[in-house]
């Protein structure tokens, strides 16, 4: 996982607000992989994740005046990313209702799994409820702090801790059963 540069992305964001094209391009290059992976983990479809990434950046562009210098950028970005994902989910809900049915039937925990020493990350995360999956992803993959995840998800630090704890417990249990 990449080390998050302290303050660098915030400086780029401030320059983006001042219409600095170079800073904007750099910011997109720096943050897109992280945001893309966040979408990919949720939707598990590369093409859709790239569409979401584009939609996300258009929203960032529209909302860029709401970022204030001195505030951390990642919670701000991920709050917008979450909203982008929620809207996509609702947009597709009616169109692809059959995907719901498929999602509800198989349970990775209960089905007969292929014996693997290490389960694929996506399969593992798929077994978690959406809120826990998102929390674990933001905490462990995107590298946000508890406070930043709380800000990005609009919940309390206590709630984030609880979700992360439950997700960890569940992942340990699943891994134990699969190993």
């Amino acid at each position, binding site marked *: 996982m990449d080390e998050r540069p302290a303050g660098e992305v915030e400086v780029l964001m401030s320059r983006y607000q001042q219409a600095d094209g170079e800073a*904007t391009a750099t910011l997109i290059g720096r943050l*897109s992989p992280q945001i893309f992976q966040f979408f990919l983990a949720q939707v598990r479809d590369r093409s859709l994740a790239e569409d979401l990434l584009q939609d996300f950046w258009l929203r960032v562009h529209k909302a860029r005046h709401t970022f204030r210098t001195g505030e951390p950028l990642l*919670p701000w970005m991920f709050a*917008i990313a979450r909203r982008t994902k929620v809207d996509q989910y*609702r947009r597709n809900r009616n169109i692809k209702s059959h995907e719901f049915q498929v999602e509800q039937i198989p349970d990775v925990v209960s089905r007969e799994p292929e014996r693997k020493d290490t389960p694929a990350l996506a399969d593992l995360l798929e077994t978690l409820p959406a809120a826990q999956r998102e929390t674990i992803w933001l905490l462990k993959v995107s590298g946000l702090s508890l406070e930043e995840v709380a800000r990005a998800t609009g919940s309390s630090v206590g709630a984030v801790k609880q979700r992360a704890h439950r997700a960890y417990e569940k992942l340990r249990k699943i891994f134990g059963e699969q190993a």
Partner: protein
Amino acid sequence: MSDEELRRLLAEGTQVPPDEKRLAEIRALLTSRLTPVRALPSNPFLITVSLAGFVLICLLATMYGGHGGWHVLSPFQSIVYFGVFLSLAILFSIAIVEQVIPGAPRRVRPGWLLAGAALLLVALIPVLFERFSFNRFVESGIPCLEFGTVCAAIGGALGFLLIRKGFLTTPLQAAVLTGCFAGLAGVTALALVCPQLNAPHILVWHFGTMAIGTAAGALIGQVVEWRMARNED
């Protein structure tokens, strides 16, 4: 599974980069639209603006309807009644401002605030108002509800001006809070204007303004959610 194994597994999930061609498209799209923007003012400033709007509505209401309500209240009633309104107005302003900044820390939980405000106002009635009568209940109540609703509508319009400055990641919550806050402005205006100290009258016709404001906010919030999901915002 050890924490170390889990961490390693999670770290492995960060290997998939987005398509470079798509990234180039995004860069081109955004850089072609660049214009300088000024960041929103600080939260204290936005909260002050919101409270100023609240006070403005109350002033306009008393200019139009007089201050019959203010004169009939005892000092104790005035302090408690308007103290609660002002406290709620401050909390609602904070909550609304926090809603319009993505990723802002949420010090005031919307659900708790709405539930707390409703319980507090209902609990105030038996403490402050002893009179209990249904005489001419509807005839005297409808004008109050109308007056309060007009004040709330003005408050809602001012609230809309405030929230449209931000970017909504939770439109439903923001709209419900704004509607309830606008309703609170209507209730406060009625408390200043209406001389009736009858508990059922205040509970139904005054506080009803807040219920209408909240319901209207919820409706508008749903429409905004729907439009955002369709990418029409």
